[in-house]
């Protein structure tokens, strides 16, 4: 087997372990109030950290990124779903990116 295939399979194995271990090992509801609160807040913290400033840096220039962030936030605030918000952010980035 080539070096590349070994690398790909090792990476696949490690990422499956990381993804599946807690899910398969933690079988009971966690009663500890701190842990329950911690896990409740994790998704919001993670997704927010990954959004900003990565969104700005992924854009054509900072103004385009900020426009996309603002447009997406407003749309989401008023209850637009995943797809509409995605389309709105892309459009904002594209239009302001042309400037």
């Amino acid at each position, binding site marked *: 087997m080539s070096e*590349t295939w070994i690398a790909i399979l090792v990476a696949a194995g490690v990422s499956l372990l990381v993804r599946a271990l807690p*899910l398969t090992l933690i079988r009971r*509801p966690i009663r500890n109030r701190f842990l329950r609160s911690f896990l409740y807040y994790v998704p919001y913290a993670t997704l927010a*950290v*990954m959004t900003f400033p990565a969104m700005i840096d992924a854009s054509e220039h900072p103004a385009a990124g900020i426009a996309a962030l603002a447009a997406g936030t407003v749309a989401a605030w008023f209850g637009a779903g995943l797809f*509409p918000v995605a389309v709105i*952010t892309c459009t904002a*980035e594209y239009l302001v990116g042309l400037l």
Partner: protein
Amino acid sequence: MKIRNRDETRRLILKGLRDGLPIGLGYFAVAFSLGITARGAGVSPLEGWVASILNHASAGEYALYALIGAHAAVWEIATVIFVTNMRYLLMSAALSQKMPPEAGFLKRLGTGFCITDEIFGLAVAWPGPVNCAYLWSAFILADLMWAGGTLCGILAGNILPARVVTALSVAIYGMFLAIIIPPTRKNRVLAGLVAAAFACSFAANRLIPSLSEGTRTVILTVGLAAVAAVLFPVKDNDPPAEGERKEETA
């Protein structure tokens, strides 16, 4: 026990595909540029497609192709993949609290395999326990588009205009916003948490640029969620899914 008829399952699968499609479109764009990186590392189209189906993680795969290009040792690859994907440990732990109590090993393993930032987001936004028909179908579509994007990126580096690729790559963040913003309307703690996370992430990114994105995500997630948990512990009727609470009171 819930008995779902075929129509109900079909409805859930269709809903999964509908929510998976925009994720997949964003993935396609990101994976396309990932494919260009893979091509540079000498990865073949088939290798890239399989790697993307199995790994489906942007930061992890960028690292993987860089390591393949550098002929890195196997232990190095394992370590780097572990670190870049460490946030999935947290997501997996969070989802363990959202699984229906009767879910067995295979359902848990399969759901674990599905975890990506966006699919996790769908699971969080879903009211009640994780629904495998919904979540897995969203994942399968998104993963195929992810792998398809990688494949196309390797095969044909620069067909799409760069401006379009850039605009599409922002789609992912739009979806994150659609998940985290709506609950902040009703919950001030979440609003504060999101604002603090933006501020800390920006500060860490600009002040410590050597910190990789994966590591920054893990450190800030743990820190911010811990602080929020100490200052604003959730009430018993706040989080996880209904299925668990029933068991808890039993």
